[in-house]
């Protein structure tokens, strides 16, 4: 099962890499070149040493020729290495770019059902961090593994060509370092797990206590918090020491094995040299091989964990990219034109979770220009109705029609073009105030934007900002108050003047006096337009043509203000409670 998944991941990886075959071929070619030449150099060095036997016996002529050869080889190696690095960079960065691009493209067409159910932080980390890790790990790891294996094989061949027995000594001792590193990393893995668990625990405590420090101080809870913190901190210190120490043994240990190999080669080499089976130059060459030979082993053991990690990251990104997108617009989907604004709900059933019914058999006919208000306790499904009209979610059964056309037969674009929406949760795009107002109509002029801002009573605060309409605001909008952000969102819709309006608690953070003024502007805007208003301030909705009172996903009462008061039901209760 897991293997199958890994295979799929690898297949997808290849799909992405395929476009860069030429770079890959070049990279491999130059890798081979680099490795071979790098390994060849010690032999030449050894030869050079052999040209200088003792006083008066230095063969300068041969030495000069050899040195010339070496310089050429060195330069070629350097260039080959550089080209290889550049190819690798090119593959890596382009592949991540492609993956990010695909992931983002997917993001724009995923159903809200998926996006609402997943934490934004998680998705962001898939698209950014995981993609990056994948690139770093898998591609770098791959090239490292490739050159590593090549180096080992090459070294063995070169060594064999010089002397079999010393080669055997090297081959016997080196896997030791592999073994030692593996042994240590297995031990430390557990310690790292403990460390990151303690770290996570501490971060979440800090998050809670520092994040809500005002409450902590209001209730003089500092000492208790510190006590808890210190307890975790001590544990973290212990685990951290273990993890840091044991993992840092790896280096000395592998270096130790290295030194053993070095000693072994030195002794056996010297013995062979005495008998004349090996020259001093040959020995010197062996010694440098002994130094190089173990390095790829250490690297490869690191590379394997890196590769596993990278594959895991890749799997997470690909999982996101392969997520089922929203149902595409029907092939014969119409584009809405000259919308009157009649909205019909026919036997609509809907639920977010299959076994938890929310809206059942909902029927409503809204005539052109009517104002519909939706009230009810939190969680009763008010916002759901809006999700359905905007087609953020599709109905389970039944249908919603605009001007008599099922909204599933309309392109999403034209549907949404004809509906203006202001939500309680304001969202500000990074950019200027102007950019934010004209989001629905990018070709709007400054005059139009100002008119819209004036209508939504945002103009007075905007002009007091340091750069007026050109002031840059950020998504978290720290320089704007919640109320100001809502005013901006309202200005967006004021600019568009769509035939259907949806206001979901659009003025909840605005004080009632300003709200009244905006209401008047809305009233003008809504004149002749169909509108849906969700609010818990009853004052906002009294003038609606239809008031829907919802509870637990059902419409329990329906009528205008007067009628509902006369009925003496839930609405009347709600209304009267504000005067008790």
């Amino acid at each position, binding site marked *: 099962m897991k293997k199958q998944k890994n295979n799929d991941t690898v297949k997808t990886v290849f799909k992405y890499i395929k476009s860069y075959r030429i770079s890959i071929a070049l990279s491999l070619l130059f890798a081979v070149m680099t490795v071979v030449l790098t390994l060849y*150099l010690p032999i030449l*060095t050894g030869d050079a*040493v052999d040209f*200088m*036997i*003792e*006083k008066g016996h*230095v063969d300068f002529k041969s030495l000069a020729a050899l040195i010339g050869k070496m*310089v050429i080889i*060195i330069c070629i*190696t350097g260039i080959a290495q550089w080209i290889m*690095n*550049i190819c690798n*960079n090119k593959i890596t960065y382009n592949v991540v*770019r492609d993956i990010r*691009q695909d992931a*983002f493209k997917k*993001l*724009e*067409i995923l159903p*809200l059902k998926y996006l609402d159910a997943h934490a*934004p932080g998680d998705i*962001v980390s898939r698209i950014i961090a995981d993609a990056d890790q994948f690139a770093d790990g898998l591609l770098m790891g791959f090239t490292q593994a490739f050159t590593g294996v090549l180096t080992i094989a090459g070294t063995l061949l070169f060594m064999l060509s010089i002397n079999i027995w010393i080669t055997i000594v090297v081959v016997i001792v080196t896997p030791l370092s592999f073994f030692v590193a593996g042994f240590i990393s297995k031990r430390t893995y557990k310690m790292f797990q403990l460390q990151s668990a303690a770290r996570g625990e501490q*971060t979440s405590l800090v998050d809670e*206590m*520092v994040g*809500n420090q005002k*409450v902590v101080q*209001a*209730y*003089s*809870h500092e000492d208790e918090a510190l006590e808890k*913190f210190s307890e975790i901190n001590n544990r973290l*210190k212990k685990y*951290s*020491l273990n993890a840091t120490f044991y993992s840092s043994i790896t280096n000395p240990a592998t270096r130790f094995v290295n030194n*053993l190999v*070095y*000693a072994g080669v*030195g002794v056996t080499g*010297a013995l062979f*040299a*005495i008998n004349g089976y090996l020259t001093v130059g040959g020995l010197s060459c062996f010694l*440098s091989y002994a130094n190089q030979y173990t390095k790829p082993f250490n690297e490869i053991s690191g590379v394997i964990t890196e590769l596993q990690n990278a594959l895991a990251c890749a799997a997470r990104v690909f999982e996101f990219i392969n997520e089922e997108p929203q149902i595409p617009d029907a092939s014969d989907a119409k584009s809405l034109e000259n919308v009157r604004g009649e909205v019909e709900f026919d036997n609509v059933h809907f639920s977010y979770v299959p076994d938890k019914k929310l809206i059942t058999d909902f029927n409503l006919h809204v005539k052109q220009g009517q104002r519909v208000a939706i009230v009810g306790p*939190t969680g009763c499904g008010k916002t759901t109705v809006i999700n359905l009209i905007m087609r*953020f979610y599709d109905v389970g059964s039944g249908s919603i029609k605009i001007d008599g056309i099922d909204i599933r037969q309309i392109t999403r674009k034209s549907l949404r073009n004809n509906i*203006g*929406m202001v939500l309680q949760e304001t969202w500000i*795009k990074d950019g200027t105030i102007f950019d934010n107002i004209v989001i629905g109509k990018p070709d709007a002029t400054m005059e139009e934007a100002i008119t819209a801002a004036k209508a939504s009573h945002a103009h007075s605060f905007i002009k007091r900002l340091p750069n007026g309409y050109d002031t840059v605001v950020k*998504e978290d909008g720290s320089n704007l108050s919640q*109320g100001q952000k809502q005013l901006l969102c309202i200005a967006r819709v004021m600019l568009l003047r769509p035939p259907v309006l949806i206001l979901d608690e659009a003025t909840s953070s605005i*004080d*009632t*006096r*300003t709200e009244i003024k905006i209401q008047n502007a809305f009233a003008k805007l809504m004149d002749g337009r169909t509108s849906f208003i969700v609010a818990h301030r009853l*004052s906002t*909705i009294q003038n609606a043509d239809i008031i829907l009172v919802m509870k637990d996903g059902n419409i329990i009462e329906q009528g205008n203000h007067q009628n509902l008061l006369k009925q003496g039901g839930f609405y009347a209760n*709600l*209304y009267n409670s*504000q005067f008790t």
Partner: protein
Amino acid sequence: MKKLLVYIKEYTKECMLGPSFKLLEACFDLIVPLVMAAIIDNGIAIGDKRYIFKYGGILVLLAIIGLICSITAQYFAAKAATGFAANLRVALFKHIEALSFTEMDEIGTSTMITRMTSDINQLQSGVNMALRLFLRSPFIVFGAAIMAFTIDLKSALVFVVVIPLLAAVIFGIMLISMPLYKKVQSALDNVLSMTRQNLTGVRVIRAFNKEQAELQSFSDSNEKLTNMQLFVGKISALTNPVTYVMINIALVILLWVGGIQVNIGSLTQGEVVALVNYMSQILVELIKLANTIVLSTKAVACGGRVQSILEIESSMRNGDYKDKEKERISGTEVIFKHVGMAYKGAGANSISDIDFIAKAGSVTGVIGGTGSGKSTLVNLIPRFYDVSEGSVFIDGRDVKSYELYSLRNKIGIVLQKAVLFRGTIRENILWGNPEASDQDVIEALKAAQAWEIVISKDKGLDYVIEQGGRNLSGGQKQRFTIARALVRKPSVLILDDSASALDFATDAKLRKSLQELSYKPTIFIVSQRTSSIQHADNILVLDDGELVGQGTHEELVKNCEVYREIYQSQMEG
């Protein structure tokens, strides 16, 4: 950064021992090529097998001693680094806890959390790395050069030339690429924040049909990032080939000079091999050193940031008056005398010249538009902020003269943002008063209209609230936070717009039960709804930070235009 050294003081011993053992190991590393040279020149030349075995034995011995030294060094380094980080974390946490609201607003929560976590982690690995490598690498580099001098003066000159050259190239590339990497990072941040925005704003983006436009602008940023990465990559891809070429050219020169020296008899073959060995040791250590420097510049930057937080001092001086334990339990009088308050860095006062008396046991309503200064006003009572002008008195005493703990202990404040902590319902309520019995807790919950929530949960008081109260609705959270304030039976109870998510019926019930509390606290209710405060004994009407009217509902409807407007706006719709 320097001031942080205090926290490593406890580990002075480890900080000395770690690098010392590292140096010892390095010394042994430097001896190895000499031993090998001896084997070649004496053992092989004479054909003495015993000599070879003896010196081979020395090599093994050196390896063992080296291993022991370096493991010891690693241990001391790890101990000092982790201990240092642990000390620093506690100090920073304590420090942050003691900061006043003014400083907290200024620093910002996310900054404090980053300092506490990732900055200190980076600092820890920086310290660990520095203790291990900062002494070792330069030591080996210079040691190898010196050893070369002991072997042969002329050949050693090659080292003198090549070491500074190599260092210049490695650090030069590093210096050029580091600022570029910062640019790459900010391009990456840009791509990241775009992704985040498209998630948080997905409804707006789709409602306005901005998908294609967003995709286009993401593509541009993505492309820009990739190009920048490729550009920096080209530069840093030079490091390896250039150092390789340089060190090997030096090697070639060494061989030539060595050849000359051997020819005139001042150098042996074995010594040439030793020199070649030293050259390759230098290369390895220089690369390590470059990495260490990158890591430590990062760590120093983190250290600087942590220190800057530690240097911020609380602007609030603690008073020394302590209330006698449970001296009085009923409401106390609260007086504002010409109070003005400006937030730090703000141009103008948020509230000014506020004057009123809240009698013991009375209910005061505070109403006004968005940004009129309602929250500011009530935040002055528990002294979350200090007044800029005038003074606030509780029980006839200036709040500044109270010890903060004692002051805040008398007050139950429910903040606008309903915050609960991970733990059971009971644990959360006990924040208000750790000594409260279950009976007290239940009573408080009932008064806050929260008891019905508790009984609907199968585990009752032991129901576990998730971090941030994610498993509760807004209205439920608000009622729990009110219960938390009530359980301490405060002398002053402040509700800062903390019933906004309650429907009118529950809101009304809550107000009724607050008036029936046996210990009769002095109550402040901040609200935007007139219905929530119209029955208060005294209503303060704020407009743009000014107190534009006070009195009962009836009086204000008659005399105060702002109040009348608010009231009418909510009546008529």
